[in-house]
């Protein structure tokens, strides 16, 4: 079977592609450039995390993107019945969205971790926490980066 594409069809396909692109941009926020959505969906299993409980402590302006201090705290009693299991940290402007995943258990006592991360440019940091009963909480913070941290 041969498929003949007429000029009219070509125009139509082209127009549809342009429309799709325009539509895509209006729906998908700027961070769709990397795999943030993919990773957060994989982490939550498709569930929509609720804002709150998670506290992200990052500088508003980071002069050096090579080492940006970050503290993630999740408000939780951390008892055997109710604790935070995992916290994933994602960055929407890095080549890869994944930054780190912290695993806690009731022996942690407090769901808090601090590390230093690389940020390629000004972007949003997202933290998603997973509790032992399968609930998800999230927080987001923008960091302005003066000098990027991915080898120039």
């Amino acid at each position, binding site marked *: 079977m041969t498929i003949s594409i007429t000029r009219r069809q070509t125009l139509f396909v082209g127009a549809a592609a342009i429309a799709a692109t325009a539509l895509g941009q209006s729906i998908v926020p700027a961070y769709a450039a990397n795999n943030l959505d993919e990773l957060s969906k994989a982490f939550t299993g498709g569930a929509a995390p609720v804002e709150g409980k998670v506290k992200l402590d990052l500088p508003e302006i980071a002069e050096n993107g090579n080492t940006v201090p970050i503290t993630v705290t999740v408000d939780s009693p951390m008892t055997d019945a109710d604790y935070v299991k995992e916290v994933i940290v994602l960055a929407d402007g890095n080549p890869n969205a994944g930054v780190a995943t912290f*695993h806690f258990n009731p022996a942690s006592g407090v769901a808090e971790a601090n590390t230093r991360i690389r940020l390629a440019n000004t972007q949003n940091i997202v933290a998603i926490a997973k509790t032992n009963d399968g609930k998800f909480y999230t927080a987001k913070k923008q960091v302005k980066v003066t000098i990027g941290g991915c080898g120039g």
Partner: protein
Amino acid sequence: MSTPKPRIKLDKKEAKKGDIVEVKALVSHVMETGQRKSADGKVIPRKILNKFTCTVNGKEVFSADFEPAVSANPYIQFKFKATESGPVVLTWIDDDGTKIVGEDSIKVL
């Protein structure tokens, strides 16, 4: 390259049962992202510490998975609840399987 010796600091050596102990640890490592290119245009292969675990008296209290976005000479700070005395063992695992191990101890009164 010899295995670097991590620097570990606990905010207390002795704790009452139920106290929260803070651990700070720093280890020398390039944490090469795999994104950079050398002067001759070749990609420098990724080499990072991708896993960190802390056990107190043999029980895991905290662990973390690191991605290339974690800075060189990774620093980690976390807390645990003092329940029993014993060694505090921190382990980092390199992409190539090498383990970096550091140890301190806690005494629960």
